């Protein structure tokens, strides 16, 4: 850590635990006095929101697991039992299902924030990579969780997505089929598949929690980025995390909960698909197989590419390309606020992601397919062409001299004078 610890335990217990397992010291240094740029805007509250959501999903998930039956015959019925008979079961189930969607809303905003403000640039490359890893683990966890309902959409989504691996047969004959049968535990999706998805769905969130700890650690080495992208120069650029950002994050979490509660209590099934209220039938495919909304952009990319194998490569590549973003962007400027040309491409990228999401829910033909392909091309072009090229040729706007200067204007370049003594001035404050 860059900053020496200033923690001084005062109580007897505080001193005792500090020499044996300095957890209070870590909390004090990393989450209370931690020097945080003073100019963070509300886009920076989503890290706290995501931590809250992870805890919420884990707690609701653990209690749901007390009633859920992970067998092909019992799963669907056990979910209905939870909804109808278990005390507060309807609330816990909807909280977990709507919570998954809200979790993705938050992670997408958090990721776009990172892209916009250049939070992935040196020295925060590992922080970014850990974040993309968390996103990947979240995608896997959510996919497995949805399958556990064992409704029509659960069953067929698992069938379709696991079948994608059979595309490897075109590389090495038999490889894909062997892999897919290994995943299924049989010759088709069935009971064994469900049981292993349940086991892994329970496991992965704890892996996510571990990677989140590494993610926060990697953040705290250089400290937070900020909207100007200008490094912290003096201590005056920062304020302690507590109470300023603890209260701000708390406020943001309550606002986020308002949106969450509105969905949960009034339109809990808006983001899900009616077909998942039909028990899984291996002999009948639904007319339109649609994944959950947060997978739609990747689904659109998968179907835009005509070859099965390259479609899979494209879909996986859409996430894989995120890992190398720190090395694709050649700009010396972090924050898009100061990059007038790149800014247009960035917002077009946001529109692209939303458009791909819409297209992922449509049948892949006609104009839908055409635009699906156009936006897929732009998606990859944004990372592989625009990031490297625009960074080299663009002339950025003038950066502020410091964070404090960006907040206070040129007055801030004066050296700070001590605060004027007040009528009942006291030295320091307890």
């Amino acid at each position: 850590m860059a900053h020496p610890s200033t923690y001084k335990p005062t109580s007897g217990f505080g001193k005792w635990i500090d020499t044996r397992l300095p957890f209070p010291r870590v909390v004090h240094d990393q989450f209370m006095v931690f020097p945080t740029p003073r100019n963070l805007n509300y886009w920076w509250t989503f890290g706290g929101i995501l931590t809250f959501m992870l805890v919420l999903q884990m707690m609701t998930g653990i209690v749901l697991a007390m009633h859920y039956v992970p067998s092909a015959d019992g799963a669907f019925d056990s979910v209905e039992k939870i909804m109808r008979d278990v005390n507060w079961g309807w609330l816990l189930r909807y909280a977990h299902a709507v919570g998954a969607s809200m979790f993705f809303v938050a992670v997408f905003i958090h990721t776009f924030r990172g892209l916009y403000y250049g939070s992935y640039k040196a020295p925060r490359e590992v922080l970014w990579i850990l974040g993309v890893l968390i996103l990947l683990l979240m995608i896997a966890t959510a996919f497995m969780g949805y399958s556990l309902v064992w409704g029509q959409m659960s069953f067929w989504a698992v069938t379709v997505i696991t079948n994608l691996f059979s595309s490897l047969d075109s590389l090495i004959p038999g490889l894909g089929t062997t892999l897919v049968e290994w995943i299924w535990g049989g010759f088709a999706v069935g009971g064994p598949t469900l049981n292993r998805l349940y086991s892994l769905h329970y496991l992965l969130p704890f892996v996510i929690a571990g990677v989140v700890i590494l993610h926060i650690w990697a953040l705290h080495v250089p400290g937070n980025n900020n909207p100007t992208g200008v490094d912290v120069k003096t201590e005056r650029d920062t304020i302690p995390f507590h109470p300023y950002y603890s209260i701000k994050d708390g406020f943001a979490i309550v606002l986020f909960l308002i949106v969450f509660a509105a969905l949960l209590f009034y339109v809990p099934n808006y983001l899900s698909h009616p077909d998942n209220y039909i028990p899984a039938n291996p002999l009948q495919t639904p007319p339109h197989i649609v994944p959950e909304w947060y997978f739609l952009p990747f689904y659109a990319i998968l179907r835009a590419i005509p070859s099965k194998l390259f479609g899979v490569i494209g879909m996986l590549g859409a996430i894989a390309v995120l890992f190398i973003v720190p090395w694709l962007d050649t700009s010396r400027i972090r924050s898009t606020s100061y990059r007038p040309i790149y800014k247009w491409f960035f917002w077009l990228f946001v529109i692209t992601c939303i458009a791909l999401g819409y297209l992922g829910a449509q049948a892949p033909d006609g104009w839908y397919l055409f635009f699906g392909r156009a936006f897929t091309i732009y998606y990859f072009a944004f990372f592989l062409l625009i990031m490297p090229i625009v960074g080299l040729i663009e002339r950025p706007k003038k950066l502020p001299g410091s964070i404090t200067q960006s907040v206070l204007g040129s007055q801030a370049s004066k050296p700070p004078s001590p605060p004027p003594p007040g009528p009942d001035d006291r030295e320091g404050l307890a």
Partner: protein
Amino acid sequence: MAMHRFLMAAGLLTSAFAVPGMAVAEEAANGHGPVIEAQEWSFAPPFGGFKQGQLQRGYRVYKDICASCHSMRFLSFRNLAEVGGPHFSPAAVEMLASQVQVTDGPDAKGEMFQRPGRPSDRFPSRFANDEAARAANNGALPPDLSLMAKARAGGADYLYALLTGYQQAPAGFDLTQGMQYNTAFAGHQIAMPNPLVDGIVPYTDGTEPTVDNYAKDVSAFLMWSAEPTLEERHKVGARVMIFLFVFAFIMFLAKRAVWERLHRRDHSHTA
């Protein structure tokens, strides 16, 4: 400046949420798809709930008409006494349950036997299994109705449209032998014959025994059956939303109060 960008992003995200709704509206709008009109339901608004009388009549329609082919395996007789549902009296529920025969066993001889139903029993199915159901219905399987209101796009609107959508097939429409034309059903051909006729179920509370009312009442009943905790959800939701709005306001004031010191420090230095 930041606010402007925030609103733009919020608008874009909101449009993303419009995706599922748009898909259904498109199907209804182009005339070649199913015709489903929005109806007024007591349970649709955020603070809405079910009407006890409607649910009781709807249960009657299910029991007299639909139950001859369709099971409702997630409902038990005791659910009929629930608050937020048909709210029959416990005595009425015992009577309704005892009117049906339920399979139980094995007895001391090792055989299954029939006995009158109890409140804790599930609604019995007319057929022992799916194969028996198909055999009795020319190969078509009458689906279980417990979750039907949530298992179809359009929910109660769709169910009402289906039950009132039986019509003469238009000229030139190729209707397969044994199927009926229905304006709301996907593909417009449905194996179920028109189940409702005016006057087929006697109503004792003064409501007109018309197909329209039967369809309304049984659709509301099916919505309750799919979502029996709807009223409680709305009620708890109202309290949670009020709490959160007040909490958000307090947190806003708290955040501002905490940050005041920082802003004061800045102004005192730059004055």
